[in-house]
């Protein structure tokens, strides 16, 4: 039947041919499209912990008194300089001149006072309120000078002020920053197509990149496809380590493997028997083969760590030798602790490092006689059961906050570790502003938690940055979770 044939032909052809439309246009050289895995819930970095917020607004849209640079060092930002009193209790900041918010309102000391008081208020919903805990008084000395008085010395104050949670906002616009953020950065908010993209526009004519689009692509293989198809120019932190080898071989792309603040640990519930026995925890630390986990779960990307600290930090102490992979030693320690037929649960949140790493950890523990039951959980479940409820034996998670060894001194934290000596160290750290002295204390803290085998330390997450050749100035490392494009340009 001839008609039939024609109908079929039309049916098959129509999908491709009928909807003729222009193909993708060439990328103009003053714009940039970056692929992100997660869409931020909103754009106010002072009202949520989601890393996806800072990924977009940090340094680009919002600025703080100080900022953290690519290498994790503190740099001046809205404060051009500062002076610290001899007792370390009074910080006096001199502010930059001629700065305005994107809505045209001027920036002065009152904005700083407003922002910091808002962040530390009793009804504040700032996710990092402890950053401001030492502040006693924030005052405007004059329009260009701010004085912060502390109730106790806080050696990390300048670093803390560089967090996204401490950015300076204006009283006129603060309430709307979730949907219409107004900051002082070189890029202003342009448009948010929810579920799809957020666009920023440069505020000054001279900037090399005039338009920045952040596209949300949750699926890692879709990110790679979007890069190869030319939909996006860069992925700041690719979630598909398996794709890195092919991207490295592709002459169109540059792959930058940097470091992050993400310590990936096999966390243990220190109060739950038999994990309350240090020998059992040490046995587990000896049982895991870190390099095998990095190779097997992360395609070789990641740096083995022996303690809860980032290897790129000057205070890092290499403690890998404290618990080398030694199944015989692990078995001996277990026998010593009278644990011959140990059964433990391992709750795994959704990220790849946890799910894939967990399988390998389970088989390594099996080799020393520990039977592990793997329980996959969603993120919300993990937060509620493991983190809040401490209802778990073992779990794998990456701690991505910078210099966060202080969590080991908290009274209620999910590993249930309680050490007076570590608490004393952290108290001393807070009272010390001298960097060399601080680094020494941080080193002692690292040795303490490793000696106690609070957790088994696995590896530091790598940052897998991929971008089109010719794009310069993207961050290689991620000392804070930001995609700082303020220094990016096409060449």
């Amino acid at each position: 039947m001839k008609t039939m044939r024609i109908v079929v032909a039309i049916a098959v052809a129509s999908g491709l041919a009928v909807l003729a439309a222009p193909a993708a246009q060439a990328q103009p050289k003053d714009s940039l499209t970056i692929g992100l895995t997660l869409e931020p819930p909103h754009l106010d970095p002072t009202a949520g912990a989601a890393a996806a917020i800072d990924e977009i607004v940090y340094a680009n849209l919002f600025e703080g008194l100080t900022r953290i640079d690519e290498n994790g060092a503190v740099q001046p930002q809205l404060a051009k300089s500062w002076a610290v009193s001899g007792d370390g209790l009074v910080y006096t900041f001199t502010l930059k001149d001629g700065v305005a918010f994107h809505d045209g309102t001027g920036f002065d000391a009152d904005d700083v006072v407003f922002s910091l008081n808002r962040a530390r208020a009793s009804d504040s919903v700032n996710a990092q309120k402890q950053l401001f805990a030492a502040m006693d008084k924030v005052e405007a000395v004059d329009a260009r000078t701010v004085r912060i008085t502390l109730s106790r010395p806080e050696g990390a104050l300048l670093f803390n002020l560089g967090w996204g949670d401490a950015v300076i906002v204006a009283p006129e616009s603060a309430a709307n920053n979730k949907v219409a953020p107004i900051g002082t950065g070189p890029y202003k908010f342009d448009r948010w197509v929810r579920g799809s993209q957020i666009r920023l526009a440069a505020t000054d004519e001279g900037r090399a990149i005039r338009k920045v689009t952040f596209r949300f692509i949750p699926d890692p293989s879709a990110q790679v496809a979007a890069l190869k198809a030319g939909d996006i120019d860069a992925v700041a932190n690719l979630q598909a380590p398996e794709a890195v080898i092919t991207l490295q071989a592709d002459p169109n792309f540059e792959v930058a493997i940097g470091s992050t603040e993400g310590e990936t640990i096999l966390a243990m519930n220190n109060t739950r028997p038999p994990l309350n026995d240090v020998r059992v925890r040490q046995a587990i630390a000896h049982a895991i083969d870190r390099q095998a986990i990095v190779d097997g779960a992360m395609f070789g990307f990641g740096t083995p760590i022996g303690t809860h600290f980032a290897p790129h930090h000057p205070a890092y102490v290499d403690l890998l030798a404290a618990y080398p992979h030694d199944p015989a030693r692990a078995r001996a320690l277990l026998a010593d602790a009278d644990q011959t037929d140990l059964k433990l649960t391992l709750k795994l949140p959704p990220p790849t490092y946890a799910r894939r790493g967990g399988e390998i950890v389970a088989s390594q523990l099996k080799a020393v006689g520990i039977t592990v039951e793997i329980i996959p959980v969603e993120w919300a479940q993990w937060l509620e059961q493991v983190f809040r409820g401490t209802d778990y034996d073992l779990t794998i998670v990456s701690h991505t906050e910078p210099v966060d060894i202080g969590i080991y001194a908290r009274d209620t934290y999910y590993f249930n570790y309680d050490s007076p000596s570590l608490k004393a160290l952290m108290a001393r750290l807070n009272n010390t502003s001298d960097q060399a002295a601080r680094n020494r204390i941080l080193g002692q803290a690292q040795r303490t938690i490793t000696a106690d085998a609070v957790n088994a330390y696995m590896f530091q997450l790598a940052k897998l940055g991929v971008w089109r050749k010719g794009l310069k100035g993207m961050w290689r490392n991620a000392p804070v979770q930001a995609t700082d494009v303020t220094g990016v340009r096409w060449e």
Partner: protein
Amino acid sequence: MLTYLARRILLLLITLLVASLAIFVILEVLPGDAALLILGIEAQDDTLAALRAQMGLDRPAALRYLDWIGGLAAGTTGISHTYDVPVSQLIGERLTLTVPLALFALFLSTLIAIPLGMLAATRRGRPGDYGVMGFSQIGMAIPNFWFAILSILVFAVALGWFPASGFPGWDAGVGTALWALVLPAFSLALPEAAILARVTRTALLDTLGADYVRTARAKGLAPRRVLWGHVLRNALIPMTTIIGLQFAFLLAGSIVIEVVFALPGIGRLIFQAVSQRDLVVLRDVILLLVALVVVVNFLVDVAYTAIDPRTRRAP
């Protein structure tokens, strides 16, 4: 006819009310604290309490249910916990993608399936029939996300004809926007087309053997007029049922495709709302989908009566 319609509409409203209660209760027992998800693992207790109060999570469940239903009855939706904008706005934005995508997929699936079904029915037992049945078997067996990934690799990455993912928005031009939807629509349409081709073939074969078809042939009508005028018209009822069900499925079931293609549709809104425990969004969207399925079924029933007046007398 009027009493029939009134009864159907009343039934529809009761269904929605029961569904709303079920949705609320199920979401209540879902583990996970929205405030904790927003503030993360560094948050302190007083901050969490402040946020919970701000979100209204400290009110009793019964009150929150009444707030919700009362609001809906008055025509207002809640404010999304995570996005901080009214849920109606979120849903509105997402529907401008999901509805056209579902219609596009439905159009493609019908366009592919009906001619194939007709081809198979009229060539029963011959190579054409086997070819169509083979296609249908494959189409039903292939998971649509797999087909989606494959089509991205072939048509976006290798050939560069389509964008690999994302949606430029309708303001980028209807042509550009539709172009971005071609691969997702095909991925959604393929399994639907496979099923619909089968249903069409069976429905046509059933009617081809009917007495009135023999009569029509005996009257000397041309085979083409028999097929279009008598056979197809009478086969429309089972086909309409399937198409109606498919539309509801395409609206609700596009989560995977929307995630694979990074499309800002209703499916991804659900996906995100679940992972972020944004119950305010979740309950409205689920209720909307329930309403869509119920309404589409209702419309399909009404369509029956238009196609075949005899069903009007049915109880």
